[in-house]
């Protein structure tokens, strides 16, 4: 395991860059636990101080330290992304494995539904969802709603792998040895698709953080929870850019871009790692 890591780091520049970016973001998350101020409190420091020694990323118009605010915000955003990715992975695994293994009519129906969910624009539906929920909107509900929309791309990918597994000898052997379909899918096929699931997880985290930021910035989520999105929301509410308090906007935007690129590079390099041909080409063998 450690050797794989070292090789990846040495031969795969995407992996190295992605790991460094993600580590920076993760260290912010760790720092959030040492924040001297409760994240929701305002007017704990003098407002509108530009970045200086005492406040490395300055302070905002609500009297909060931007750096400590940022650490809590990125923690919440990441947690949200991971929750959505985890939930939607369950759906895409179930649909992808069943569809690929069963084939026939079940496959056709499931893939029709799958393609439908790929095409349907999610943003208007999530907006409608917020419109109907208003004050009832919570972190959990939004995660559930997004998970139920964010599975189809990866379900198709998992299905394509499951399709090829179906015709392998070990599958026939498991069928003849009397394993149930559920057992075959969970014990035999699941381990084969897990590498792809890992790499799609990164992209799914990116997707859900991106949508969460968008919804929060417009004010369509619970704006009291500090996330990257709500941070930009409050900055916009105080017209931070016009007032010249650029650090309030630039800090969360830069952090979230770092997260996106880091996770994306990790997923790209993981994809290459899974495909041995491109791995060999890269190592110049």
């Amino acid at each position: 395991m450690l050797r794989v890591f070292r090789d990846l780091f040495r031969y795969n520049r995407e992996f190295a860059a992605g790991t460094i970016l993600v580590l920076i973001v993760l260290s912010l998350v760790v720092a959030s636990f040492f924040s001297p101020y409760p994240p929701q409190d305002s007017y704990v420091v003098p407002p509108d101080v530009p970045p200086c020694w005492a406040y490395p990323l300055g302070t905002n118009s609500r009297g909060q330290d931007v750096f400590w605010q940022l650490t809590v915000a990125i923690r919440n955003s990441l947690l949200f992304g991971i929750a959505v990715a985890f939930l939607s992975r369950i759906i895409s695994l179930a649909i992808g494995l069943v569809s690929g293994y069963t084939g026939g009519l079940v496959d056709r129906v499931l893939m029709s539904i799958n393609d439908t969910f790929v095409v349907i624009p999610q943003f208007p539906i999530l907006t409608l969802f917020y419109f109907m929920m208003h004050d009832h909107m919570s972190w959990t509900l939004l995660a559930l709603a997004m998970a139920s929309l964010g599975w189809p791309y990866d379900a198709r990918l998992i299905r394509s792998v499951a399709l090829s597994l179906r015709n392998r000898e070990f599958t026939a052997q498991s069928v003849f040895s009397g394993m149930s379909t559920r057992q075959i899918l969970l014990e035999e096929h699941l381990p084969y698709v897990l590498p792809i699931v890992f790499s799609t997880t990164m992209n799914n985290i990116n997707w859900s953080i991106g949508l969460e930021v968008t919804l929060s910035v417009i004010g369509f989520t619970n704006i009291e929870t500090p996330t990257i999105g709500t941070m930009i929301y409050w900055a916009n509410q105080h017209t931070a850019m016009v007032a010249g308090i650029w650090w309030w906007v630039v800090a969360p935007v830069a952090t979230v871009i770092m997260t996106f690129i880091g996770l994306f590079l990790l997923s790209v390099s993981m994809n290459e790692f899974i495909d041995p041909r491109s791995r060999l080409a890269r190592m110049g063998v």
Partner: protein
Amino acid sequence: MKEWPRASLLGAEIEFASMRTYARYFLRRLGQFVFVVFVGINIVFFVTHATPVDPVEQAISSATQFGHSDPRAVEIMRKALRELYGLDGTILQQYVRFWTRLATGDFGPSLSAFPTPVSVLIRQSLPWTVGLLFTSTLIAWGVGNSLGGLAGYYRKNRLLKAVGIAATGLQPIPSYIMSLVVLILFGYIWPILPISGGFQMNVSPDLSIPFVSSVIMHSILPVLSLVLITIGAWFVGMRSLVSNIVTEDYVVYAELAGVNRRRILTSYIMRNALTPQLTGLALSLGAIFNGAIITEFVFGYPGLGTLLVRGVNSGDYSLVLGIASISIVAVATAVFVIDLLYPLLDPRVKVE
């Protein structure tokens, strides 16, 4: 009786067979289109009816929150709103009415712009969204695929490698963040382009040069941010497709036979790689649409996105519902159109 020459008979047969497979292809796509609309509208119905908040009560509470109001008046208002929103009667009646409203394109009057019908508001902003979407998709898809194809074929080219790194970096950034960055760059740091609205306020909207140029100037930044986020995916996808095709035997053979390199790239390689990219376009249209309406909101562009946010903020149930439904139908239609174009690029669909 005149005897048909065999060759032409065979030709007619192939023609007939290919028409039949095309018809079958068409019907299958049509079925998928109907299914997308059906599922999408059902999701919308589910979201509006399974959630605990009653939009009628919500409208009433926001209307009566200032000062005292007559309970009888409130009762009349409640009844009128139920009728207006199509929320009276049993759930089955509501469901049927929901579909009738969609089929006739009549979502009732908008509450925030009373008494203008929702359909009129949507019809006013839909062309802006379609224009933005069409232009940016065309540019991103065209440029991204061409550059990606070149990068896959000329793997050693330094410039194309640099473009590849930039494209990879831009790809994962969501539309809101990209629009915000573009807005900050061109709105505050280097203010040379208009950052808000669809055209200048003091120009009358008709087909005159000042109006058209104003529209184009205002669309540059939204189009730019949309192109920047979507171009990476096409570039990277095309590059990997082409670098796979390059190793195929027929390409090597064509190179050995001395076929012009440009001809190899365009008609031997790119043409084959374009079909999966067209499928990719159809599949990602929903996501591109999301990006477009978010970008519109950032730039205050007078399209569906801005209208949607305005509708939510003013508690306009019919408007939000109308936009959500129309978005689904519009995207499904666009995907259907792309699907119908597909056989033109890939003759295999016709003869199977």
